[in-house]
């Protein structure tokens, strides 16, 4: 079953990338869920689509962008999307929760416009939306390794600060934590992880990999650290099962990975029925 993944280079790359995603996405996801930002991940992943579409459009006119992996433009867009959301929150002070749907739906609208201008309604778009097993090239793979290292390093460095901010924001601010810059760093991390993961899982499904394993882990974990352990465990299991079944059954890997996650979630909820959260 899994041998074939070691036979071919491109499959090996996506398997290793998948393993890294299965680690990174749930770890960042724990912070996202605990900080009640889970919708934020969705909004950022949707705005990544706009960036990718923009890059595809530019690629038609400027050869430089044609050679560039659209994912990078996607990351830039998702970081600016995070900033815009903060801005909108200030504008709608009494309806702060409106910021995310505005950005989310607006982003897809603009994305569709770009795609349509670039004549991009084709096979490639489907891979961007729902993921592909063969999307990772050698250079992509190296970038993924570097980014994974970087994100993990930053997370380790700021673990205490993020932890503090997640559980008691007021206390954290009073004790002098720079909330805004920490939030900004965190959003960059999220944008990077979305960029890394989307090549395999697909844009529309990245956020699933961030929230679903954490939602299952919450049912089991008895502490914050345990939550990481369980989340990463569920994440890895889903990525491996998803990738293998996607390859053998010729399905979109994003779909199989997310459905494995859903199965794990339903199992977790059913098995931990009596516990209250």
């Amino acid at each position, binding site marked *: 079953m899994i041998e074939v993944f070691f036979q071919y280079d491109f499959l090996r790359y996506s398997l290793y990338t998948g393993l890294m995603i299965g680690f990174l996405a749930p770890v960042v996801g724990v912070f996202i869920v605990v900080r009640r930002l889970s919708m934020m991940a969705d909004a950022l992943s949707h705005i990544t689509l706009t960036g990718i579409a923009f890059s595809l459009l530019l690629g038609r006119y400027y050869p430089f962008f044609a050679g560039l992996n659209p994912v990078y433009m996607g990351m830039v867009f998702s970081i600016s999307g995070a900033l815009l959301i903060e801005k909108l929150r200030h504008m709608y002070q009494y309806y702060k929760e409106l910021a995310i749907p505005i950005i989310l*739906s607006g982003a897809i*609208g603009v994305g569709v416009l770009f795609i349509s201008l670039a004549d991009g309604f084709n096979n490639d778009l489907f891979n961007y939306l729902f993921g592909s097993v063969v999307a990772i090239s050698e250079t992509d793979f190296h970038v993924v390794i570097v980014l994974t290292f970087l994100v993990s390093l930053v997370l380790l460095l700021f673990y205490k600060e993020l932890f503090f901010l997640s559980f008691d924001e007021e206390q954290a601010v009073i004790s002098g934590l720079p909330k805004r810059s920490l939030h900004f760093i965190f959003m960059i991390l999220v944008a990077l992880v979305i960029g890394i993961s989307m090549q395999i899982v697909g844009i529309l499904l990245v956020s699933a990999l961030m929230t679903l394993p954490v939602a299952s882990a919450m049912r089991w974990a008895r502490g914050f650290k345990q939550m990481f352990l369980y989340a990463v465990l569920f994440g890895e299991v889903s990525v491996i099962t998803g990738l293998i079944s996607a390859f053998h059954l010729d399905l979109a890997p994003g779909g199989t990975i997310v459905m494995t996650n859903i199965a794990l979630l339903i199992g977790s909820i059913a098995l931990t029925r009596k516990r209250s959260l």
Partner: protein
Amino acid sequence: MELLQQLTFLERGVLAGLIIGFICPVVGAFLLVRRMTIISEGLSHITLSGIAAGVLMSQTTALLAFINPLYTGLIFSLVGSLLVEKLRQIYKHFQELAIPIILSSGIGLSALLISMSTSSYSEWYNYMFGSIVTVNLNDLLFIFMTGIIAMLLLAAFYKELLSISFDQEFAFTSGISVKKMNFLFSVLIALVISMSMKVVGILLVGAMVTLPVAASMQFAKSFRQVVFLGILFGEAAMIGGIFFSYFFNIATGGMIVVTGLLLLIIALLINKIKKIMNSYRLISSRKEIVK
């Protein structure tokens, strides 16, 4: 009926667009005050899996070939709205987790079903991003009927919905069943989503529900004004979007949303300028007092 049959494909599309541009903001206004706008995103994504399931069923089983994917989409989004309520109970302390879970499982399921089916990609893109020229007579009838049902429901329960939106506790003590109203609300959203997706596209329905209301919020001074201005913005986005998409040959859904977005940006700018003017006036009047 006779009249509807005589319409050209473009007229059908425009008519459908106008109905949608009317109903989306009305429901959106209620969602806004209940702070639930995000639910439209979750439900619209799960409608996509309903559509995918419908298409797949009609392709694989000859017996089920008559199924219109619109109806399976409607059923899925109804089930989805019930699931959201259920998940809210399961994750009591993290209620906001319910919608991302539904949203991502909806998309995940659709990714699976889509990659299983044999339809061409362009058909899926029509469902996801909307296409005005594919609205046929049956779809128009569906949009018409669901539109009327949604309006009737809204008119019949206007008072109850209003009171539950603004003061849930008061509504409860005055004997309104919150559970029933919540269910009714979910039905409304599901109806609106399934009627709009043919023109605006599933991934963009949420925009039609949110953007016009967000823009009208900038000017409105009462709930009624939010609704009326919302309809105005919604229709303007529709007409503008359809016009430009036809003119520049761009995907309809995208253009409609972008028009809505532009209206929102203009509304925000006008409001900002007003505020600056006001503060300027304040400063100059103070100066005069000092003098």
